[in-house]
């Protein structure tokens, strides 16, 4: 699965096509990474930090939130790995419309 990495974006699935397309990098890995980092920080705060029990009404809120965030993070990483986004070989270009005084699209982008 991870036989092919590109240098310009994290893409653990390696399923990104050769085509240079917008939206090719997988948002699920970003979500997983951010939630995971938050979860880790909260977990550490929950264990070692000030639990502020008088504020939360006796619940170690950081700890629980940290655990839930880590689970969510794992879910997104797993989802991205199991069902990677397949970038289509050919994305249909939006046609020029004669009604619209638009510029002609040049054949190969910029």
């Amino acid at each position: 699965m991870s036989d092919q990495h590109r240098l310009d974006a994290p893409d653990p699935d390696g399923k990104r096509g050769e085509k240079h397309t917008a939206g090719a990098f997988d948002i699920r890995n970003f979500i997983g990474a951010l939630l995971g980092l938050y979860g880790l920080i909260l977990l550490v705060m929950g264990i070692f930090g000030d639990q502020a029990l008088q504020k939360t009404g006796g619940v170690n809120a950081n700890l629980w939130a940290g655990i839930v965030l880590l689970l969510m993070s794992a879910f997104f990483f797993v989802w991205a790995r199991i069902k990677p986004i397949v970038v289509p070989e050919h994305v249909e270009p939006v046609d020029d419309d004669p009604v619209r005084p638009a510029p002609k699209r040049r054949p190969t982008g910029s």
Partner: protein
Amino acid sequence: MHALAGLPTADALISAKPVDYVIIALYFVFVLGIGVMARRAVSDSIDFFLSGRSLPAWVTGLAFISANLGAVEIMGMSANGAELGISTVHYFWVGAIPAMLFLGVVMMPFYYGSKVRSVPEFMFRRFGTGAHLVNSISFAVAQLLIAGVNLYLLGSIVHALLGWPLWVALLVAAAIVLSYITLGGLSAAIYNEVLQFFVIVAALLPLTLIGLHRVGGYQGLKDKVTEFATSAPASAGVPSAEQQLHSWPGQALSGFDSPFWSVVGIVFGLGFVLSFGYWTTNFVEVQRAMASNSMSAARKTPIIGSFAKMFVPFLVIIPGMVAAVLVKEIGELKAGGTPPGGASGEGVKYNDSLLLLMRDILPNGLLGVAIAGLLAAFMAGMAANISAFNTVFSYDLWQRYIRKDHSDDYYLRIGRLATVGATVIAIFTATIASSFSNVMDYLQSLFGFFNAPLFATFILGMFWKRMTATAGWVGLTAGTLSAVLVAFLSEDGFGSASLGVIPLSGQGAAFVAASAAFVVDIVLSVGVSLVTEPKPSSELRGLVYSETPREELVDPQERTMPWFRRTLPLAGISLGLVIILNFLF
């Protein structure tokens, strides 16, 4: 975050610790990182503006909600919850879900199928230049005004958290939003919106749960609200416990005395005219669906969004209600007092409910997540306004009326310049927003002016092939003017400039203004159509329901999908759920 530590920071509302700043900083690293990476993927202007129609439905669906889940939604709705109680849910269950489903089921095929890049462009195809120009300009102006509201709220939270002067906060906030849109365009905006959605949930869910835990669960909240309503002095005008704890008939929300007219006002004014106007024609939202990868995904975008939208009230209204009984200052305010302090420094307002609740019940750590979530939400709102503005500005105004026939690169560059310009203008419109005491009223008035007539023209134009080009622009203009007139005649639709001839105030005035716009638009459009020449049927294919072959309105791929991935069953489930919710509350 400490770069401006030299500035006065005396009146920071919330005391964040280093761990909170680390969490906030991490969020910004991700936001800008997405911008940088998206930039490498932008190949031409279509990619920049519509993300190359390449995104899956769940991404665009969450972006659809996130683009709307801005400052107004979070601060405004929790403020409404604190002040008025549970009837605020009408903004979601009546004022959003039905319209979102209608957009997905009925209107999206026309938008996506006609391959237009913007809502005004659809207007151009259907009605020609007049209606297009009116729509483009009013949309562009509205976006600048609304971006100002979001920026103002963003600036005021930075001000509240860090104690920076409001103008510094505004500039910094504007610079961050600007950098990530110009870096990556719509792809970056959409990807960030999805990320924001999860950060916002991670911020608000613990707040709601801990809040409910502190007041003894939902039953405890009900008891406390009841106790508060009966013990509050009559002069404070606190809605009765009955009104605060039940969604219908919602007199507290509409401001109408009669329960019957209150229901009519909410269903027709909010549920039909304002909400259908907002959700079905607002390009900020529709643009998200246009970026999806198939007709099926485009139609499912608002429907998937509706499931998320349905549960947002629990994350914003409940904390608002908890704040009203748990936070000392909000309680005093609700009982008719004027506690000092607050985000503005000019006394506590209902808008501060969420911030004060965060201060009171979140430990450091979660506090940082909550602050990051709020910052995320406010930037999402503003970024959505700006990215929709730059599409309309460069394609619908600049390209069509000012400089035709230039290269893609040229319009891409214009789009980036428009982004910069819009951000600078938003700093000024933010100062307009700051002069309104209740931003929710201001916004509802704006939606009434711009969206209600647009919806009337759209719906008539989509289903009545006889409707003419002249009727298009006449209806739009007259509708907007009549909404402005009603707002001007009401007690406070225009703030202090209103005359007070019609005894309506607050959000009720906005409902009536929107309804007036809708009715005037329909009547005039029909009248004008009957005396002018319609377009030939051959030009209406894909634009008018009766002239479009049925098979062009559905995605052939969809038949091969399992039922839970098809548009109509999903819409049915969503509608069923929202009806159940209405019965429960």
